[in-house]
């Protein structure tokens, strides 16, 4: 009853149609827009070869600027990916020869000023910002950092720690996984446009590398310096000239950036992520250059397809289907190398395949018929009427002019673009859509939870490739092995073999059956697991667990395997397979018999400390008790799904004899130093005669 009344009120209110006392939109007439004032920029070449751009801007008592350096992470050596970025970061934090970075932090912040640095894909910048009254002091810090950074080791170490965390965290956000994989797949992972930094690269980068990188690229003739703010140009020019007079370094010209050599990578690429209920997607292929004659038409085309709230994709996927909050398209064009044509967004898992299909249809539609007059006009008006916003802040003009010079574009590029957009026709749009959009080459990256997809991706009738998100562990710096350390390693291993019952006894173990209770500590909070593990020499392993919520079984022969849960049986994912291989190596009777495996190396790496490594690079460290000769502890890198490897340490206690072989009955596990699990072994049986068929039988 009440709801009916409310409804009546609502309807009554909205059906009152008073006389329109205001005009309709198309009755409005706008005065012509005031001429926009384009700020004056003065340019000079300093005696040392540096280009200087000055722009007076007296609105606020501030002065700011930036040095644009011809360098970039495209110049990273293939085995030291991340070098350019590290150089850009540590340039600022590592301080100068006179002052540490920390001292500079305080000095600048006392003045509410800043100097920052960074190196991106195709340029490096060092920038500053200051209140007018402090500009001399700030410029001096800016100059010292730009020309003579100290790259202190402690700040390089700090930056590396940070970068390691960035690697560890790179699979946490589904949207950024989609963006990253899309770009790497299209550009190719074997070249600077598509490769990525890993732990092992960081380990190889030294302070000397940073110093050399800076020396190679940071020299006057390789720098454009732009300054704007509350000053007179003549005074600022004199100031800068004097400041940089003693910087006369010369270097050969920097070579051109590498060419993009991408091959089409058509198909669907799926990265599985279990903790999301949306699929984040990117669809596209290689784009083009800003200087392409068709760039203005392509921009208008992309705007119609997915540029704003009034675009086709927005209307279809968001407004009409309600599948997505975010969806959009961009014709990717860069100054000096092809960008990425891309459609991106996210949709609820159930609608993944339908959303992708709807997008593919929109691309087809754009290629098969002309856009409407209204669509073209809206897109052109959007660019032309908002053109003034390219000039609403003087700094935008300065930045543009410097970038045009840097990439060799004409000074009036933006005005040429303006007239070209005005001239685009419906025919042009259809022509460029047919010429530049290549449906058969589309790379489709989807990051989500495929078990929730309503319609499987296979329905798209395109090949589906799985993306492996495993983060490669740093290859553990295997300690140096020489004849002596290997010989000592063998000796110590033999001592341990003796202590547990002898090499012959170990060699006679063909299979193993262990029943135990595991109590999870820490985050898992006291969960108890009943477990039976079985092993059959040399490399078949199975464990069956009784958990509070059901039974789990896992099986591996070292090459393949499966997992069985109450939800069903699935092939063993790659990261778990690695864990299985690591578990095989750690299995005590097998580990202690490592001298019988031709692919294993046993090395003494410290007092009573063995490192045992197998052919695939898995390694375990084994601490041997000096008094008893028994293994006291072992440590290894434990792969964790979706995270960085943890350092696991197992303490082995309560040694008891089983058919003449000593085995530990109490094992305490810590991960990254924190308590993780306690294992109490109930019973161990040797040589039960189990067969591989029995072990591989699914529940």
């Amino acid at each position, binding site marked *: 009853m009440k709801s009916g009344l409310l409804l009546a009120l609502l309807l009554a209110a*909205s059906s009152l149609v008073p006389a329109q006392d205001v005009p309709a939109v198309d009755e409005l007439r706008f005065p*012509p827009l005031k001429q926009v004032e384009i700020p004056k920029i003065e340019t000079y070449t300093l005696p040392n070869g540096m280009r200087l751009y000055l722009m007076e801007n007296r609105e606020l008592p501030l002065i700011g600027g930036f040095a644009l350096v011809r360098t970039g992470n495209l110049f990273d050596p293939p085995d030291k990916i991340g070098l350019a970025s590290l150089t850009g970061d540590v340039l600022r934090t590592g301080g100068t020869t006179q002052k540490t970075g920390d001292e500079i932090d305080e000095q600048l912040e006392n003045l509410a000023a800043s100097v920052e640095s960074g190196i991106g894909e195709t340029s490096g910048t060092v920038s500053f910002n200051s209140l007018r009254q402090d500009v001399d002091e700030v410029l001096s810090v800016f100059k010292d950092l730009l020309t003579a950074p100290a790259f202190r080791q402690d700040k390089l170490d700090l930056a590396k720690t940070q970068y390691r965390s960035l690697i560890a965290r790179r699979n946490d956000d589904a949207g950024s996984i989609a963006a990253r994989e899309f770009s790497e797949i299209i550009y190719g992972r074997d070249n600077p446009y598509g490769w990525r930094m890993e732990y092992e690269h960081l380990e190889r980068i030294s302070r000397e590398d940073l110093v050399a990188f800076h020396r190679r690229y940071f020299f006057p003739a390789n720098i454009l310096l732009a300054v704007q703010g509350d000053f007179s140009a003549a005074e600022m020019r004199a100031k800068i000239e004097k400041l940089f007079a003693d910087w006369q370094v010369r270097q050969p010209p920097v070579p051109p950036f590498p060419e993009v050599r991408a091959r089409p990578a058509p198909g669907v690429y799926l990265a599985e992520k279990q903790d999301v209920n949306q699929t984040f997607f990117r669809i596209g292929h290689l784009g083009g250059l800003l200087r392409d004659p068709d760039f203005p038409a392509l921009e208008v085309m992309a705007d119609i397809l997915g540029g704003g709230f009034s675009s086709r994709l927005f209307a279809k996927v968001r407004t009409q289907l309600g599948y997505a*909050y975010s969806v959009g398209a961009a014709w990717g064009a860069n100054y000096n190398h092809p960008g990425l044509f891309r459609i991106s967004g996210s949709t609820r898992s159930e609608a993944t395949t339908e959303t992708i299909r709807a997008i593919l249809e929109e691309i087809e539609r754009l290629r098969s018929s002309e856009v409407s007059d209204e669509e073209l006009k809206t897109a052109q008006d959007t660019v032309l009427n908002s053109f003034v916003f390219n000039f609403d802040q003087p700094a935008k003009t300065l930045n543009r002019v410097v970038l045009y010079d840097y990439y060799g574009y004409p000074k009036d590029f933006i005005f040429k673009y303006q007239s070209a957009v005005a001239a685009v026709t419906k025919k042009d749009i259809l022509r460029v859509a047919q010429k530049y959009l290549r449906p058969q080459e589309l790379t489709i990256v989807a990051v989500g939870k495929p078990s929730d997809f309503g319609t499987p991706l296979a329905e798209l009738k395109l090949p589906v490739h799985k993306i492996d998100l495993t983060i490669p562990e740093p290859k553990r710096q295997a300690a140096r092995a020489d004849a002596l350390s290997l010989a000592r390693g063998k000796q110590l291993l033999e001592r341990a073999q003796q202590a547990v019952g002898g090499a012959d006894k170990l060699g006679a173990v063909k299979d193993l059956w262990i029943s135990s209770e595991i109590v999870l500590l820490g985050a898992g909070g006291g969960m108890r697991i009943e477990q039976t593990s079985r092993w059959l020499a040399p490399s078949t392993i199975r464990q069956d667990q009784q958990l509070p919520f059901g039974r789990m079984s896992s099986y591996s022969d070292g090459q393949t395997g499966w997992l069985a849960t109450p939800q069903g049986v699935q092939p063993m994912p790659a990261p778990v397979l690695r864990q299985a291989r690591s578990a095989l190596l750690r299995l005590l009777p097998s580990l202690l018999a490592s001298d019988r495996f031709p692919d294993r190396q046993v090395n003494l790496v410290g007092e009573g400390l063995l490192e045992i490594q197998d052919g695939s690079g898995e390694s375990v460290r084994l601490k041997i008790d000096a008094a008893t000769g028994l293994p006291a502890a072992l440590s290894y890198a434990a792969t964790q799904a979706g995270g960085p490897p943890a350092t696991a340490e197992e303490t082995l206690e309560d040694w008891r004899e089983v058919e003449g072989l000593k085995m530990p009955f109490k094992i305490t596990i810590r991960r990254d130093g924190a308590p993780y699990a306690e294992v109490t072994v109930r019973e161990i049986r040797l040589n039960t005669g189990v067969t591989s068929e029995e072990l591989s039988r699914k529940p």
Partner: protein
Amino acid sequence: MIRAFQGSLAALLVAAACFGQSLAEFEKRVTEFTLENGMHFIVLKRDPAPVVSFYAYVDAGAVNDPRGKTGLAHMFEHMVGKGTTRVGTTDWAREQEALEEVERIYDRIEEERRKGPRADRARLEELETRLRAAIEQANAFVKPNEFVRLFEANGAVGFNAGTGSDYTVYFCSMPSNRLELWFLLISEWMRRPVYREFYKERDVVREERRMRVESSPQGKLQEVLMATAFLAHPYRILVGWASDIENLRARDAAEFHRTYYVPRNITIAIAGDVDAADVKRLAERYFGRIPPGPQPPRVITEEPPQEGERRVVVESPAQPILLIAYKRPDQRHADDPVLDVLAGLLASGRTGLLYKELVRDKRIALAAGAVPAVPAAKYPSLFLIYSVPNVDHTVEENEKAVYEILERLKREPVEETALARVKTKIRADLIRQLASNAGLARQLAFYHVNYGDWRKLFTGIEEIERVTAADVQRVARQYLNPKTRTVAHHVKPAAGTGEEWR
């Protein structure tokens, strides 16, 4: 009656005087007036370029969502894209009839659903089929996204809206010769919004929640923190609970509009190349048509005092984040500027204590910082500290290191140089904001609504200036109290899922 204000603020700018003439000049360019219906305007003339920024601030947000209808303020905000009775439709009269039919069918569905276990399933299914058909029928009259298209085609940039806990805002920038278009479209919409495509848009809002909260480890953690720290106050939820969103009705949105979008609850700030007299004329003509309404209700529910630390974890395969929140008073409280300074000391730039100790020296965090008021501060809220642990370092280690810093702040007064540095930064940040129309419009509206006067943007600096080391110590002791603390962080999902070998 229009109350205009023009005058000098020079006396109030003593603290900022060292920055020269610019700030005093600034005040001369501001014109303020209130329409008869109560709607307030602040106009700032700033004309280096022929552009203008608009910021409409409605003093209602997620805290005003009715019980069982969380997400409503946000849902209503989304209707701004749907247009008016004249924009976005091919035939409003027929569209309106079709929309009424949708509501009638939906009413019958709700009636049936309310029977709970006795609901007739077959009947529900039949009604739902009819609902879908009715929605399609209404859609036949829609010119999709026409309202926003008009803005974009007329050169608007940054057209968007946002819903916070305390407010809902609508903003964009336009070439200044399009001034009247903004007045026409926004006043028409605010006066009589239409609930076109409401149920499709509800799906979109539901997707927004999936994207921002359910598929984001950080979003989930923040939501859980708020819902744990606030037992009663509506600050506990921002985006809205999934099931509430899925059941919002057009009627609820209309009721929300009627209650909260009254002129006296709306402030509009305009900054750029405009003439104040033009703005006044247009404001009267377009927004003056909106009838005045009663003062909207304030939130009555107060958060009861917290009587002990609360801890909560979220399982996630992602790398962990740590959030530590303390109860703090609202923005009108005398300690508000001290809390700003305290946050600055902890988190400002490269010299904030959290950065220096957790990130730089101990290297246990990738990033760490503090936010003085979360999620907002119209009502008593939270002082938040966060840390993003480095790989190989634990949440526990980070939490301990944070407490060491906080204990020191309670034990000893901060260094004068550090205090001066933070104050300087707050002043300079203010100056740097003055260079952008959009930023200025936002600040003017925010300060007017929340502090009763936009001048607080500048006079607030004076209050900051007066904060002493003793104040900081007292405030740290008073508010950084374990008893009123809520801690939230991620933990790895319980192991033993068959994916762990041992």
